[in-house]
């Protein structure tokens, strides 16, 4: 899962990430980070089952942790129910119903983004993080 970590301005010079990694022994995948005078924002990815411990690690150091909704957004006006997205999704989010209409089980989406490049109709998008 992906998390947004907000670090207050007075904490950004500390080695907060390194500390959390050492303490929790969870391997964090840093997706993006931006640091400015008003504080820092980082997007990280962690295994789902590590959420509680990682969250505790950051919050105890004064940072806030927000889980990100990474599931794909489908623009139903653009979608033509071709089904191109079905075979590329590693977690089998997409399927056809008996009328050949596309169904999406978004709870299974990991936000990997493979389907966004596949969709010929630009109907699929991963929400942007700010």
């Amino acid at each position: 899962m992906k998390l947004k970590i907000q670090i207050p301005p007075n904490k950004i010079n500390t080695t907060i990430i390194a500390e959390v990694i050492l303490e929790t022994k969870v391997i964090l995948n840093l997706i993006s980070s931006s640091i400015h005078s008003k504080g820092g924002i980082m997007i990280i990815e962690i295994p789902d089952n590590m959420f509680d411990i990682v969250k505790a690690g950051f919050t105890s150091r004064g940072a806030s942790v927000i889980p990100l909704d990474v599931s794909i957004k489908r623009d139903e006006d653009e979608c033509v129910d071709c089904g191109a997205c079905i075979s590329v999704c590693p977690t089998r989010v997409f399927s056809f119903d008996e009328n050949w209409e596309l169904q999406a089980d978004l709870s299974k989406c990991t936000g990997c983004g493979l389907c966004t490049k596949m969709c010929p109709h630009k109907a699929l998008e991963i929400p942007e993080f700010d």
Partner: protein
Amino acid sequence: MSKTIAEINEKIKRGDACVVTAEEMPDIVDRIGLGRAAREVDVVTTGTFGAMCSSGAFLNFGHSEIPIRMAKTYLNKVEAYSGVAAVDAYIGATQLARDNTVDDIRYGGANVIEDLICGRTIELKAESYGTDCYPLKEITTNITIDDLNQAVMVNPRNAYQRYDSATNGSNKIIHTYMGELLPDYRNVTYSGAGILSPLSNDPEYRSIGIGTRIFIGGAQGYVIGPGTQCSSASGFGTLMTMGDMKKMNPEYVNAAAFTGYGTSLYLGIGIPIPILDENMAKATSVRDSDITVSIKDYSVKNRDRPVVKTVSYAELKSGFVEIYNHSVPTSPLSSFKRARKVASELKRWILEGDFILGTPVETIPQNLSAKPMKETMKIPLVGDIMDKFPITIEKTGSVVEAARKMRESSKNHIPVVFGPKNHLEGIITSWDVSKAVSEGTLNSVEKCMTKKVIYCYPDEKIDVAASRLSSAGISAMPVVDSEGNVVGLITSEDFSKLFSGRKLQ
């Protein structure tokens, strides 16, 4: 007993024709038999909705106050061909806007067509050299489809009878006009409507010919001939079609973009098949399981892509096919839901008497085939330009020996081999040698060589090999046979010599 198209048209006008879709027909034939089906069913409607790259439209803009003979014409920055008189242009679906690249595909000819049909405004820009009769050299204006005298879709190649499906046997993801193909045969994509496919329901072209009236993009249009590359002889027929864009419905005309390929047009086409006799009742009772295609490996950069397997549309539509003992997910690229909608809409038109069958003035020959391009400048193969007697070293050899061989041959790369047949084990470069010197590990080539070697085969085209070399950022590759034994070496120098023309005879 047989019927004629004129008789069926009489029934349509009277409102008592029996019309079914190509999806309904097989069960009807099973239930009541061919003889009765041929007597009772008058028309079977087909439909397909998918990417039809070979589509485009002739547009006529009318004359400007100071006339211009448009030489270069752009519609929302997409070039349209205007080498046809003064103010006509042909906009092709796959032409990209001039500020797009293959890595950034946002807008192309297909989008122009879609925007026109949706009634949106398009910027027209044209340039010319100016003549006495057409003095204007430049014009920029905004138009909609209503401002055009004609907007006629004329598509060189539509409605493929069936289409080979795609997979990827390489270890990298590839982006093709058959969509995103995952490495190691992890997905399969296919195109075409199978049971509803127009040409699969009339494979002998009994009723589909020049002048056949069809459903195209939600309007009534015509077949105007065999499509380009039509291979009616091998069951890969295509049709050339036309239709009036001003009457089209956006639901059946959609612009699409395939990542890494370009734009394309999704188009709905439906063809009514008159059931004149038992033979035609039989043809229209075709099922998905009767129509087979090959699954081809699109990672092979050659026209003749290897066939991985032959499957039927029934297997493809089941969602999974088996490849090398794995169950592999399949994706259609065309929409079966909309293909159904095309077939049922056409059925409704005929039932309501709004659509009368056209009688073809000429049929499409059943013996057409397509030939490959004649290439006068044959691209050489790796085997033609490689060093056929490369210096090699046994993996048991020493680094000092490797260094000596490099100096004597003035080569920077030496393939490391093993056994009597020179099986490729690795490659050692002058950089590996200096590293070994600095680390003091001089006694074993095997320890300091690069084990993951990028290599190529003698029968690969040199442009393919050259792009592999440059994308890996290396300057030499061993050439191996099918068993992995070294048969040559090819270097970036060999390529540059060739491309600069010195080695070309």
